[in-house]
């Protein structure tokens, strides 16, 4: 069961690295968070501790329902819903993501469980999306993918207290809400979400 979920997570990560259309990105992110939620339930079922279930429910609520809702609301007014000319085009970004994943597997062979490696993969692909794309909304999704990677790392490496997990999830929710509002305002002021306009604070 766990292997299937890690496979789903890895697949969504690689595909999202290559996506150009934004609504596909939100769908990919939704599937990925669904997989992580199920993963929590599975872990809870295996280890028998109750707080995994609570975390699973919470991630499902926030990551699959609330955050995609915010993203869709801010996408609605966008005129162009496709990443026009990304810094690294789709082909190249998938190739680079592949190379990164190979490098991670080589570097991280010291760790036994492959959740950690999946978490790091998510982190790296999220960072790649953040750097390689021009649209603010894609940067936001890249950031959220990195968050997912972080959650995976937490679950696998250390046993965190319940309160702290809740707080972290709340944190992620708040950040994505703020980002959505900010994208809304940027869109209102700049009439576009392309970050090229956001570069005149040069000095």
């Amino acid at each position: 069961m766990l292997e299937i979920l890690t496979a789903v997570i890895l697949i969504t990560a690689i595909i999202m690295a290559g996506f150009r259309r934004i609504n596909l990105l939100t769908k990919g992110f939704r599937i990925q968070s669904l997989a992580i939620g199920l993963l929590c339930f599975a872990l809870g079922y295996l280890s028998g501790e109750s707080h995994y279930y609570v975390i699973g429910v919470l991630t499902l609520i926030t990551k699959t329902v609330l955050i995609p809702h915010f993203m869709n609301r801010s996408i609605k007014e966008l005129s162009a819903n496709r990443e026009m000319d990304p810094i690294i085009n789709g082909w190249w970004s998938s190739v680079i993501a592949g190379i990164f994943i190979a490098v991670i597997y080589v570097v991280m062979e010291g760790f036994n469980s492959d959740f950690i490696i999946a978490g790091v993969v998510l982190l790296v692909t999220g960072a790649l999306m953040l750097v390689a794309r021009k649209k603010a909304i894609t940067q936001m999704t890249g950031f959220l993918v990195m968050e997912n990677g972080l959650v995976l790392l937490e679950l696998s490496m250390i046993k965190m207290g319940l309160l702290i997990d809740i707080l972290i999830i709340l944190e992620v929710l708040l950040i994505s809400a703020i980002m959505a509002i900010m994208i809304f305002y940027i869109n209102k002021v700049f009439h576009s979400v392309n970050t090229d306009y956001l570069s005149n604070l040069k000095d």
Partner: protein
Amino acid sequence: MLSYLSKFFMDDFLSVFFLFIIILIAIPVSVYSTGYIKKYRNIYSGRYFWIMFGLFVLSMIGVVMSSNSISFMVFWELMSIASFFLAIYDHKNRESIKPGIYYFVLTHISGLFLMMMFGFIYKYTGSIDFTEIVHSRGMIQEPWIIFILALIGFGAKAGLLVSEGSSFCAIHKFPSMLSAMMSGVMLKVAIYGFIRVTFFLMGGVSWESGLAVMLLGTVFAIYNIINALLQNDNKKLLAYSSSENIGVIFSVIGLALVLYDLKLYEAAIMALTAGLFHSLNHGVFKSLLFTGAGSALFATGTSNMNELGGLHAKMKFTAICVFIGTAAISCIPPLNGFASESLILVSFIKSSFLLDSKKLFLVVILCGCVIMLASGAAIFAAVKAFGITYLGKARSEKAVNVREIPRSMNVGMAMLSALSILFGIFSPFIVGMISIGLSESILETKYIVQPFGYEITRVAILLFGIIILILLVSRILDKGKKPQINSTWGCGFDTSKPNMQYSGDGFSQPVARYFGRMAGYKKESKVKDTILLKQKTTDKLENNIYMKLIYFTNFLAVRVVKIHYGKIQLYVAYILVAVILSLILVINFV
């Protein structure tokens, strides 16, 4: 309370002597500046000036009297802050801000070098109190680092490495009473610091470093005096000539360091006494000359020699005081310039006679010749400054309608000229006192330096006696005949036009032909219906070295600012690169 204070203050001879210099010159200059302030009365607030002036003098006293490195550094920086806010006191005229900024940055650089020096002293001796450092003097392993830092730190502030007239330490652009105080007193505080560190804290340095200081001082003396000679601005000429005198003082201190290291203690004490006595005298007559140039500026509104001339008619008393000042700086016997200059030359000759290594002997003698050449050029520059501005006929409108100078300015200058005459006549007593104080604090033995015995006082008295005698005789001779007043003889031509006289550039033309290249002297002449002759001197040292430094920093700054390219992706990439790089570095090296 005093015992509590004495914990902070040094009371050995060196501090008391320099404290004496500071107070001695601060009084007449403050009297002078009560008059000079009238120039700015309705424009700037007088209270601001007096607070800053008081802070300036107090901080100098603090530097001289402080007994540990932290209070020394605190007062040192306070001194540069107070002098900065005095320098930009006249911030309405446009070109007084930039020199103020350059000056403040320069003093901060010298402060930081001194901080580093005290850091090294703290590293080896483990203490910041001067008396403890003196006791644990043996623990200093590499004295040459401390010496180089001290030389750069004190040299930059004393106008040795950065000459006073250059645009970095542009004393001539500041209000005249401040430039008088700065060149008269503040440079001596830097010399005090240098002697305190090299002689007292480190107990003398290797003779090679002493030699380096001597050569440096001599080279800078001749470089600055040639620059002084070719200037047309009164105050700029005086600024360059004050760093020439500082060069001479540093070369004598270098000589003292060499002798101290070669165990010739008496000659070292004599050289150091010469250095101290010359810094005292230079303080007196240089502030006298600066206040003179200041009153000329106050009266006419310009300090450019070619526009002045014939000021003696309306400013008789100032002319007399400046005459005494010029005589003092050109080492005319009864005055104090002669006393210290001859003492320096005597110490050069006597110490070279005692040295046993032939090479060192030759170097010392040649330095003596260069210093004598520099003092000859100093006479040339001083006479040019006094002669062209005060004597002869007024060369421009400004020099004709001269503003009335307030009395307190003349009083200040009179006090300074009286001091310079007194120090000249009673110089043997002062030299004796300095040498006793120095020998007790350095060698713990009493040693009096009397190269001239009391001859100078005898010469002075005889000279005054004969002059009075001759004046009486001539009074009797022309009792009947009144002198006729007629126009100057001009081979029959009408010499009423002022530009028949020699101008500032003309007066120093022969030297420009010989030493022009050393001061970046360029002359261009255009012959249309009238002949137009213009000359320009650039401070070679400043342009080639210091200006290049500034261009280089600007060049780097433009490159570094490019980091902020504005793209957010680039910024995030910076973080990831930083993560990867530091991970690699930490795993391999830590």
